[in-house]
Each structure stands twice: as C-alpha cells, then as structure tokens.
C-alpha cells in the first residue's frame, strides 16, 4: 500500500469543496480548452495511472495485473485554487464532458480561505437567495370600482424627478421673481448603479454607455448611469453624452483630477453628482480596486501609479460632522457647475439613515438621498463585510419615506433605493415594490451585469472573482485577453433589451393598479405580503 500524502490542516479533498468538477472520460477529447479557460486554474491536466486486476473464474490461473495510463482532468484541492463554479470549462467543451456541480453541504473550504492570515476578499454579492422584495404582492387591482388601464395602449408617464424640488409656494414664487431654483432632471426611474471604470473593463463600460445613449436618443428613455468612483474617460467628459452620466465622487477622489481639468471643455453638464459616503455591499468600508486591475489606462484616469491597490478610505478625509462637512461638500460640488447640477449623497443602508435624511431636509442644496441596502453588489470587498454588514433596503427606505411624510417633504427630496433589486431576476416587480414603498427611483448594478453582459455571479458564491481581474466574461477584467471576449455592441444591445422589457413589465404592474399619469411613489395601499410582522413594519396590507 502506498503511503498517504502529507496531511496538513488545510489539506482538502474534492469533497470538501463546494464546487466539484464532474468530468466524463469517455466524451472528453483532451482538447485542453477547459484547463486553458479556467480563470483560477482549478483544473489541470491529469495523468492517471490505472491498475486492472485480471482474474479468471475460480482462480484457474493466478491473477495478473495490467497497468495503463490515461489522460484527463484533475481538480485541484489547494484552497488557493478552488473551483469557483463559473462553468467556463463547460462553455468551451465541445462534447459537454465537464461541468462543475454545487455541493452546498461541502463547507470545509469556508474554514480555510484565509491562508497567510489574509481574510477572504472577493467580488459579487451577499450570497443569500432570500428576498423580501420578491414576497411583496401588488394587491389593489382595478376592475369595477375603477377600470383597469391598458398597459399596451394607454398613455403612460413613468418618469421620475432627480433633484431638489421646492414646495409649491416657494417654487412658484421663485419663478415669479426669476430667482434661482435647484436643478431638477426628469429621468427614467431605473438607474444604472455606480460601477467604476476600473472595476469594469473598458469594453463593458463602452457597451453600457452606448446602450444608455441609444436608449436616450433613439428610444426616448432618459436612462442615467452612475460612474462609480473611478473617474470618467476624458473623451466622454468632453462629449455631449456626459449629460447621461452621474459622476460619483467618493473618499478616494479617484479620477477627479481629470474631471476638474475637463470642466472648461465640457459641452454639457453631467446629469448629477453622487457623493458616495457608503455602499450597501461593504458599509463602513471604502472602495477597493485591487492591484491586479490597475493597469496603465486605469492608472492614468485615476491619477495613480500602476499596479498598486487602491483602497478608498472609509470616510471622506474632510468629514467630521454631517451638519457642516456634508453641506460643504454638496455646496462645493454644486458650485463647480454653477449650481446647475443636482448633487446628492449616497449612503449604505443603516439605522442612522433617518438622521442623515433629516439633515438633508434642512439643506436646500441637497438634491436627494440614495440608500444602498445590504444586498448591493461590489467589485471587491471583504467577505465578512459583504455577508454580514448592512441594513435591508425595504425598512430603511420605508422609514425614510415616512419621515419625509411627517415633515411634509415627500415631494422635495427624492429617495433612490438600491441593493438587491432583481437579485432573483424580478427586476420590475422589485423596483415597483420599492417605488410604492416610497422610492423615487431605483438603482441596479448586478442585474445589469448579469442581463446585459452575462455575468455568471449568483447567490451561491459562484464566480465572485471580480476583485482579481480574472472575470471569465471580461466584464470586470483589465486584461485585454479577457475583455476582448465582451463585444461592446452586444452589451449595448442587451442593455436596450433589458430597459425595454423592464418598461413593459413596469406598465404591466402599474396599469392594473389604475396608475399611469405619474409614478406611484408611496402608493403603499397597493402592496401586500403574507408575513404579518413585515406587513406591520412596512405599513402595508397583511394578506394570506
């Protein structure tokens, strides 16, 4: 008997890994495409020695052994090379001979993904398939007390306002006096959430911007996209398409040298400025672009050296009080564009969001509040932050909206909700539920990546390697060998598909509720849920 290999505490077997490779020797052609494509080198060429015992019945002859060698695949069990379940091996296999299978009961790897004392970092999402938003039903159906509307033929106005809206008396007086009024944009209520140039590959970004432009200029849908913290390509800054972009400034100020330099050459104002104070996927943590992805282009746009990790601080360096510093930052940003551009903060969902909101209510320049719930995604974060930190979006949003209703400001400060919208594919239903709970607009990033670019991430810890630049679809990679897999034209096409189908579904939800002339913001009487405590908490109907 052969002696066993050395067994260390972190020596794992394939059965200890959640994603296990199934490989069929008979159909495998040994073409080698699977091992070449695997982004994490989880599989390698296996040279297998096989012994066959040849014995005759009743041992008429003494048994003999024959030895053969066959070639195939071996799954590596070193935790550093565990299979991530992306299934690119299956995608490239000509004979469908290989595929990863999820074995959720195999949890041993979880205890060994901190080699060298480095806590696990990854991209992706919270890895929790549960969704409260999916449970919300739309229950106020118009039929006889008022006729249902026709989603296909009636006139619908499903736009929202981004910017500080004055109370009627003040707004009308300002018009009469020709006084300054805050900038307000009429936009589509589904916004593309902040994903930076750097987190995303150049092809992905180009595809998104092309798709957004097409939606605006050909389909008449005022869709807006937030840049995330990473600046904006210089040509885009100087183009007329800037008006479709929301520029984000965050605690690292990455990319803002280029933006400020481009100011005198800008042909259009950006749609808005988003000041990021927090992110749902990693609340209390700054942004993170790991060194793998900081190539020459990214370094140039961000104004940093190549090949260094770019962690943004958890907070803005100038910030010490919400009353003063946030107000100052909003004012500084407003001033940079002559008070013609809405400026709003984005925070992660937190029990302190109502305190932030109440402060913004008293600041006449604050153009809104974006709240990102715990189900938000990210390109890179510590696993613990992603899985355990943060506040669900539904109650956070509802509390904020109710606060606005108490102070009578519900039309004045738009709330933008994000984090987990469409996490299980129900984008329009989740968006409509949040709008009826009080959101003026919703932001989505992950769904857009999945639907427009084919991101493989799921709530089962699949892929999630956005942080190290090996995205097998080329969505979050800065390696041209990978991102050339992604055709920007096709991304743009898919983005348009996503928005058009979303628009149809949104109409299919609001039409039976008898709503068409304005977005049903805060129409909570139309919502129901079969969980009593949730119904009580959200002040919607309890239905069973």
């Amino acid at each position, binding site marked *: 008997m052969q002696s066993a290999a050395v067994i260390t505490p972190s020596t794992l077997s394939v059965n200890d890994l959640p994603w296990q490779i199934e490989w069929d020797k008979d159909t495998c052609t040994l073409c080698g495409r699977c091992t070449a494509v695997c982004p994490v080198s989880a599989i390698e060429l296996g040279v297998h020695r096989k012994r066959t015992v040849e014995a005759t019945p009743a041992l008429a002859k003494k048994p003999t052994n024959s030895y053969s060698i066959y070639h195939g695949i071996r799954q590596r069990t070193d935790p550093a090379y565990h299979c991530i379940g992306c299934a690119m091996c299956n995608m490239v296999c000509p004979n469908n001979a290989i595929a990863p299978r999820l074995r959720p009961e195999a949890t041993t790897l979880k205890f060994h993904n901190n080699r060298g004392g480095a806590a696990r970092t990854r991209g992706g999402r919270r890895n929790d398939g549960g969704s409260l938003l999916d449970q919300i039903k739309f229950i106020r159906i118009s039929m006889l007390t008022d006729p249902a509307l026709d989603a296909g033929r*009636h006139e619908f106005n499903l736009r929202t306002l981004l910017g500080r809206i004055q*109370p009627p008396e003040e707004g009308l007086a300002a018009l009469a006096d020709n006084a300054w009024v805050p900038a307000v944009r*009429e936009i589509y209520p589904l916004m593309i959430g902040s994903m930076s140039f750097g987190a995303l590959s150049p092809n992905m970004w180009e595809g998104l911007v092309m798709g957004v432009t097409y939606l605006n200029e050909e389909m008449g849908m005022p869709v807006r996209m937030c840049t995330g913290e990473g600046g904006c390509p210089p040509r885009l800054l100087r183009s007329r398409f800037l008006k479709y972009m929301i520029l984000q400034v965050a605690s690292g100020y990455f990319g803002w040298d280029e933006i400020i330099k481009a100011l005198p050459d800008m042909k259009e104002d950006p749609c808005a400025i988003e000041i990021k104070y927090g992110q749902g996927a990693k609340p209390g943590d700054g942004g993170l672009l790991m060194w793998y992805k900081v190539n020459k282009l990214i370094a140039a746009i961000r104004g940093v050296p190549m090949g260094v990790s770019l962690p943004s601080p958890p907070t803005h360096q100038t910030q010490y009080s919400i009353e003063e510093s946030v107000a100052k930052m909003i004012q500084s940003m407003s001033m940079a564009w002559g008070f013609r551009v809405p400026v709003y903060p984005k925070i992660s969902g937190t029990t302190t969001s109502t305190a932030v909101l109440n402060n913004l209510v008293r600041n006449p320049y604050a153009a809104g509040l974006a709240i990102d719930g715990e189900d938000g995604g990210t390109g890179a974060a510590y696993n613990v932050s992603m899985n355990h930190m943060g506040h669900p979006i539904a109650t956070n949003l509802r509390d904020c909206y109710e606060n606005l209703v108490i102070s*009578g400001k519900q039309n004045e400060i738009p709330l933008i909700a994000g984090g987990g919208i469409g996490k299980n594919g129900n984008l329009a239903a989740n968006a409509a539920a949040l709008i009826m709970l009080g959101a003026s607009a919703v932001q989505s990033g992950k769904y857009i990546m999945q639907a427009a670019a084919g991101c493989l991430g799921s709530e089962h810890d699949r892929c999630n390697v956005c942080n190290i630049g090996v995205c097998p679809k080329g969505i979050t990679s800065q390696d041209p060998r990978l991102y050339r897999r992604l055709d920007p034209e096709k991304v743009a096409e898919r983005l348009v598909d996503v928005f058009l189908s979303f628009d149809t579904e949104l109409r299919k939800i609001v039409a039976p509720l008898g709503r068409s002339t304005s977005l049903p913001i805060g*129409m909570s*009487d139309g919502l129901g849920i079969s969980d009593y405590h949730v119904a009580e908490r959200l002040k919607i109907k309890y239905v069973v």
Partner: protein
Amino acid sequence: MCRLFALSSRDPVSPMRAIEALNVMKEGHDGSGVGLFLSDLGGPFGEMKDAPILSGIFTDEGLNCLDAYMGERGFVTRKTLVLEPRTKAPLGTPLRGTYMARAYEMPADLKAKSKAEQELAFMLMRVELRRMGEAAENIRVFSFWPDTIMIKEVGDPMAIGEYLGLDRPELDCRRILAQGRQNTNYAINLYACHPFFLQGVCTMTNGENTAFVPIREYLLSRGFPGYMGYQSDSEVFAHIMHYTINRLQFGIEYYKHIITPLSDTEMEAHADRALLARIKQTCRKLIIDGPNCVIGCLPDKTMFMVQDRKKLRPGVVGGKPGIFAFSSEICGLDAAIPDRDQNADFQPMHLDTAIVRPQCQEVTICNQLQSLPRPH
C-alpha cells in the same frame, strides 16, 4: 358608481329638482345615499348672507353640547331650520336625531376681524365640533359657513328627499350639488358621502381615485387643520381645489393643470410652459390618476366640471341662460332642464374644464392647451 348632478341658477330653485334628476339616473347608482350642498340661498337664510350656518345632524345630547359650545364662544342663534321628518324613515336609514341648519350671529370680536380670520375661525369650529361628536356620534357637522347648507344621509335620494321634506321653500337656492350614493369603496360613514366642503369650496366626484393614499399623505402634511377626514378617496379633490385657490392663489383654470398636468410634448407648445412645468414639478404629489369626473362649486359661486386625463367617466353640461346643470348622464339633464338647446350640450373631454359663472349666462370651456390668465 356615483351619479352626480349640479345646478347653477339665476333664481332660487328647489333641491328636489336635483334629486329628481338623480332619480332618473337611478340605473347608474345604487340609491345607497344622498349628499346635498345648497348655496346662494333664497328664502329667509338668503337675507342673512354673512351669518355662518351650521349644518349637521344632532342627538339631543349633541344639541346640548352644541349650544354650550357656541354659547361659550359668543355665537347667538339667528335662525334655525329643523328638517322634521315627514314620512317614516326609509328602509335602511337609521334614526340619528335632528337634521338642522342654524344661522348664527358672530360675536363682536370676530366680526371686527378680517374675512380670512373669520373664515379660519368657522373652519376650526367645524373641525372641533366634528371631533367632539365623533366618539359618541352625537354631533355630525357637514359645514359651518355663510349662505351654505349641507345634508347627508344614507338611503335612496328620492325617499330621503320626501322623508326630510327637501321641497320646503327655506331650502330653495341658486347652487346645488347633489350626489346619489353612499361611498361604498370604504367603510359606510356619513363623512364619506360626497359632496365635501371646505371653506366655501365644495366638490363631488364620480370614480375612484387610485392615487388617494399619497395625495392624502401630502395634504395631511401641509399643516392646515382643514385637511382632515379622508373617509373617502374623493375628499382630496375638494382639498386640492382649496389648496389651489387659497394656498397657491390660482383661479379655476389652473386646477386641471394641477390634478392632470399636460404631457411634456403638449407643454412644449404651450404659451405658459415655464409656469406649467413648475406647477407639474412642485405639485407632483397632487396629480390624480383617474378615473374621475369632478363637479364643484367655488367660494365665488362659480361651478365647474373636469375629467381625468383619460376621460374615463361620463359627464355633460348644458342649459339655457339663467339655469345650467352638470350631470353624469344626459337623462339627468333632460329631467332638470328639458327646454334647453340640446345641441349646445357639452361633454368635457380630457383637457377641458367646463365653467359656469354665477351669472349663469353661458358655459365657458377652458382647454388646458390655451394660455392661462396670470395669477393674481
């Protein structure tokens, strides 16, 4: 569905004329209730135009509370009209107490105050009386306002008309709003019965308001004590009109721009696009989402009808110089003013506001695409 009928006449007419019109439209409503707004009164009340009239239903205990309340505030009764029942109560109509309209002499200190202060005082007193009587249901007040009487009850409009003797000459008046149905979309409650009154503004509505909850929340948060109640989704139409003329100082022509603003494309070609865009933006929470036909009367006795953005409810206006009527159905109009020129009947569409001024000379149609009078 509710059926609505409104009359504007140069000379006082009996409210029964409106009740009869409701009766011919009976196929369209369930006869479950009636609400009446009577203003610009003839008869004895017409001779005391400045005296606020309290309308409501009171138990004996409620009357005692009322007398004590009004006495404390220095209000002295000038005239009381009790609608003594003339028949047995119709089936389904409960015995609630005394149906009464009582005109008061204001105390001297209130008389010395401005009209706005007086109007605020009347409204606050009505709201306070309503709250006082809510728990024991011994006081129900529908209006407290000069030259205005309101009556509401559950039951068939014609039967209620005969029961309360609404043909009595003291009730003759020049402006009538009549609605034939108890609100059945929400709990049965007299306060949910149209028309709704607030400081001289009165409206009634056909159709359910799907944007009710956000509008109610918005009005409740305006900090005005009269924006209360909302037992019916239709009450918000009266309060939006009140907000339009009292808070925003706009005329009737602007009401439709607030509840059903033009689309951006329509607005682009409008002479007042800057103002309209600002109204649409700042008053966004007051946008209704139909299907609704709203008929109402303003403090200056102008009467109007507007439709929702898709014109999903019936409504017609017609008449002859001296008397005009607004009706859910043409048969109602035929019953009330048979000798009019039917060719001149007008059914307001999705952009129209039909207006009859107190002189009752003509129907003016204000289309949302027309330019607007400057706000005063």
